[in-house]
């Protein structure tokens, strides 16, 4: 996806994704399909089926659903994962100091740290601005696709605010860039 300022996830960076689990999963898709490993910490609610439909290679996906409530254990868990796993998603809340230490560790280990909430010191923050579904009506049809606007903001090379329109999910559950202007949203 050409959404991030450098064209994709960059090793060593920290990216926070707010307000959309499917956007978070879509970011894992191409990297895991190319042979990278991913781990998701503290998100017992992650939809693995949706992940597979978005293109995540789930056999290279490890889940740590409940890293515990002790902040020290959470930090050690995430740090251990950053040592060996290419992409680490953190869903547990962490203190700002811990967040900075983990961001530094990701940079040092050349891993990508992703967070499902805002993260102090993140290089890029992605946010879903608008999302309109099509496919369902008054008791008819089935959810087919959602047209969303993603906004990226960040520091350094990423300081320029950028946006992109995506189909997330596109029909069939994958993700695509939405090229033409949104058609009239059906039956809403």
């Amino acid at each position, binding site marked *: 996806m050409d959404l991030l300022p450098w064209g994709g996830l960059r090793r060593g960076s920290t990216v926070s994704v707010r*307000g959309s*689990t*499917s956007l978070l*999963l879509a970011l894992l898709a191409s990297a895991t399909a190319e*042979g*990278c*490993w991913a*781990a998701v910490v503290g998100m*017992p*609610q*992650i*939809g*693995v*089926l*949706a*992940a*597979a*439909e978005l293109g995540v290679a*789930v*056999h*290279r*996906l*490890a*889940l*740590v*659903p*409940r*890293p*515990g409530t002790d902040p020290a*254990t959470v930090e*050690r*868990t995430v740090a*251990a*994962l*950053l*040592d*060996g*796993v*290419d992409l680490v998603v953190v869903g547990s809340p962490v203190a700002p100091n811990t967040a900075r230490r983990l961001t530094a560790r990701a940079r040092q280990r050349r891993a990508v740290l992703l967070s499902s909430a805002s993260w102090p010191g993140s290089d890029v923050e992605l946010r*879903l601005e*608008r*999302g*309109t*579904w099509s*496919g*369902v*009506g*008054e*008791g*008819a*049809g*089935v*959810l*087919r*696709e959602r047209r969303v606007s993603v906004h990226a903001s960040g520091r350094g090379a990423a300081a320029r605010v950028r946006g992109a329109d995506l189909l997330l*999910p596109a029909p*069939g*559950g994958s993700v695509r860039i939405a090229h033409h202007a949104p058609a009239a949203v059906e*039956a*809403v």
Partner: protein
Amino acid sequence: MAVRTLVLWCRDWPVVAASAAAELPPHVPAAVVASGEVVACSATARAAGVRAGTRTRSAQACCPELAVFDDDPERDARLFEPVAAAVEELAPGIEVVRPGLVAVPARGPVGYFGGAAAAAEELVDHVAARAGVEAQVGVADGLFTATLAAHRGLVVEPGGSAAWLAPLDVRELDQPAERRAGVRGRTELVDLLRRLGLRSLGDFAAVPERDVATRFGAAAVVAHRLAGGLEQRPPVRREVPADLVVTREFDPPVERVDAAAFASRGAAERLHAVLAERGLACTRLGVHARTANGEELHRVWRCAEPLTPRGIADRVRWQLDGWLGGATPTAGIDRVRLVPEEVVGSDALQLPLWTGAGQDSREAAERAARALVHVQGLLGPRGVVTPVLGGGRGPAERVRLVPWGDERAPAADPGQPWPGQLPAPSPATVPPAPEPAAVLDATGADVGVTGRHDLTAVPVALVVGARRRDVLAWAGPWPVDERWWDPEHAHRAARVQVLAAGGPGELEQIAYLLVRRGGRWAVEGVYD
């Protein structure tokens, strides 16, 4: 228990092939070189002091009349096909391990010829008569022992592998010919073992397997099994699913090797991808070809290590080269089928002790495995899980979470029909336990589902937790009659997709997957 195996081995095969291709008489000293080093030499060259590993220049210095050939795996494979065919005439079910080495299950020929020694003699004579090649035969339990026996032209008694291997030099684990065939060498391991004072295979085999695993890594465990006369891989093999065959049709039929090889490369990559998708890797590859005249050609390649896409493509090219270069087919090939005859779980792949070029993904797997085991140490074995997709109706029941390191078997067959299964997209958020909700109609009354799978009223509001949201649209219900045959566990449920209006600070539309069970609504997923 290792399978009793008969191995036919042609000494110095690359040189024999090169000399035959150049029509060089066998007594002329010859050597095959790759990147300035001798990789194989003939007996006469050896007598003059040439060895594998000698620099080409010094080899020519000690043996001035040495004929030098470039290394060419395709030539080796092409000229080996008649040998393989000759063996097959007497012993069906052959597997080419590499050009120069064929393995056969020993039971057939040994029974037929009335003894291992007699079978060996028959095979050597037959290969000499049909292919004009000198060969040696060894019979033993397991491929590794049988190969070493073939080097010596011996028959090792059933069950006697470990005792026979024990006095042999530990350097036998590192066969230069295997290294050339793309198998990771064991040079460093052998070197290390010798420095530790483990000089014979018996010494190494006497070390407990657990100690080998913890100190030297998984690759050494394989070597350790070999040294103890066991099969290379533990006998836990996967059944090969029938749909993993990759077929490539050629129209018009191809007659030139390079064209066939080029066209087969895509098939090789596809096979690898199909296997990798299922977390498998191929250790025995069947190459089938059909000629325009309807002849079926078939050969199995066996590999010590799971095949890479490159490894598959090489073997297909070698085999096609052998068929098209020889006199076997009467017309061009119009179809190639690649059949994985034996597969292993790719996560059971030996995580390497050392890594070379082109092993990035395996290296990534090893690093990830170490990190995940580390976390299991912190949180307990069930703290790290991997998802396996299987059959089922709801988004949660189609996913099974397996503790890291356990076998990744799906809970239910994904291939079966699952009536009531919702089409993609699936919800990206699936609460571990469905969250109670209420669906209300215009009067504020509960909306139910009738026995005919209709909603009892038009839904107007959705209440989740303390939040009330307006319903914009909905779809369904999709009925689910689960376990209707079992009165205790039977339950009827229905699923509905609801599109609700978001509040301040939220997206304007939020899509939910709701389920109604026992007269109550619950949120089963959110399409966020």
